[in-house]
């Protein structure tokens, strides 16, 4: 049987090790996306809506953070969480929690920038109407985030995709411990180096399938959202 055939068999037979790795990957990346979104969506919306001191500086910083090399993020978080680091007493280095923190940091600027991009034009469209009503800042924020929901969700999916495909940071802070912190990307890197191409390829197939699914979702949500946009 070819390597591809063996890999396909691993996927189709729902191999326990493979399922464990995929499950952990999804759990870590989904949690990281959720945590990053909790902060990035309101802040991205606020940057789109209001003028305030240091706004431009915040925009430049957040945009620059999008290009953050994952290994640098991994290194910084490693230094923070290592025994000698300021957060070392929590003992979370080489745990899924550390991986979630690293991925949250990596996704945060992406979700923030995409949220801001989604809300900027909407705020221009809505500004006069919302100004004409007695509307509180919180109501304004909620209205714009809700009405930009299709684009915001697309941003979330992009962030989730980035988290899932990330390898540099999670291998540094997670340690790639079998059965504990081993996720799809780090396993692929390790198993390939060991010559165990069946498992690496099987995980590659799963990762690629998830990436295609995410892009299909982004496309579908985008086309659904366009029905609600005024084109006249």
């Amino acid at each position: 049987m070819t390597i591809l055939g063996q890999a396909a068999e691993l996927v189709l037979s729902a191999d326990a090790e493979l399922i464990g790795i995929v499950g952990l990957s999804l759990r870590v990346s989904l949690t990281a996306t959720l945590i990053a979104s909790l902060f990035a969506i309101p802040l991205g919306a606020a940057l789109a809506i209001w003028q305030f001191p240091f706004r431009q500086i915040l925009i430049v910083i957040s945009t620059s953070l999008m290009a953050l090399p994952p290994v640098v993020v991994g290194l910084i978080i490693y230094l923070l969480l290592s025994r000698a680091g300021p957060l070392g007493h929590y003992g979370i280095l080489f745990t899924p929690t550390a991986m979630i923190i690293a991925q949250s940091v990596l996704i945060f600027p992406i979700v923030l920038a995409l949220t801001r991009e989604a809300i900027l034009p909407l705020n221009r469209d809505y500004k006069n109407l919302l100004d004409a009503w007695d509307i509180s800042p919180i109501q304004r924020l909620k209205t714009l985030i809700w009405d930009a929901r299709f684009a915001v969700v697309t941003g979330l999916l992009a962030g989730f995709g980035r988290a899932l495909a990330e390898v540099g940071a999670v291998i540094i802070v997670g340690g790639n411990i079998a059965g504990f912190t081993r996720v799809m990307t780090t396993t692929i890197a390790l198993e390939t180096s060991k010559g165990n191409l069946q498992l690496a390829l099987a995980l590659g197939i799963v990762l690629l399938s998830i990436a295609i699914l995410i892009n299909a979702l982004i496309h579908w949500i985008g086309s659904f959202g366009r029905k609600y946009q005024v084109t006249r």
Partner: protein
Amino acid sequence: MTGLKLTDVSYSVDGTQLLHHINFAQDNKGINAILGPNGAGKSLLLSLIHGVIRPDMGLVTWDGVATHKNKHTRGFVFQTPIVLRRSVRANLAYPLKIIGKNSSAAIDDMLELSHLTALADQPAASLSGGEAQRMAIARALITRPTVLLLDEPCSNLDPASTKLIEAMIRTFVADSGSVYISTHDLAQAKRLADVVLFIEAGQLLEHKPAEDFFATPATPQARAYLSGDL
């Protein structure tokens, strides 16, 4: 006093004065048409009297209260309808939500008034220009304001849409609402207006019953405007 009062109101942008020392008082009743040529300051005056923008000088009050403090008592409709990215029904529900109410009966009434019942669950973005403007008026009326401010609501609309919108305005006034409408459609002003406010180059030149304004305009600018020379 009840109603609208402007006391020595001026407004400028980047050093250019766009409205000059405007003074007038008007009771909350009937339809008040704000007339004037393009660029006279009609839309600006409407925004000022609603409290969307504040004057550089002077005071605007409604029922004795500074205008920006009681916006919820008025509805405002823009020349180009602003459509929320929601269904027609959700657009109408939105102002109710802001004030903490949820009345499907009120929404159904407004859908009926605006002849949009059949389109209630469609995305509002799919409406035609006339339908969108009717929805915008219904959305402004759903919180039961006492005053409706309309900024050229029928520009670029066909006669059938204009007729439906005028019917909505008349229904509101019949229910003891008061309307301020800016328009450059003289025929519409003649059909609807009880009082005319004529402005030109940012100055209020005439404020009188519509019948008098159209029969005997007092200023050369108003005469030129009515004869199509301004």
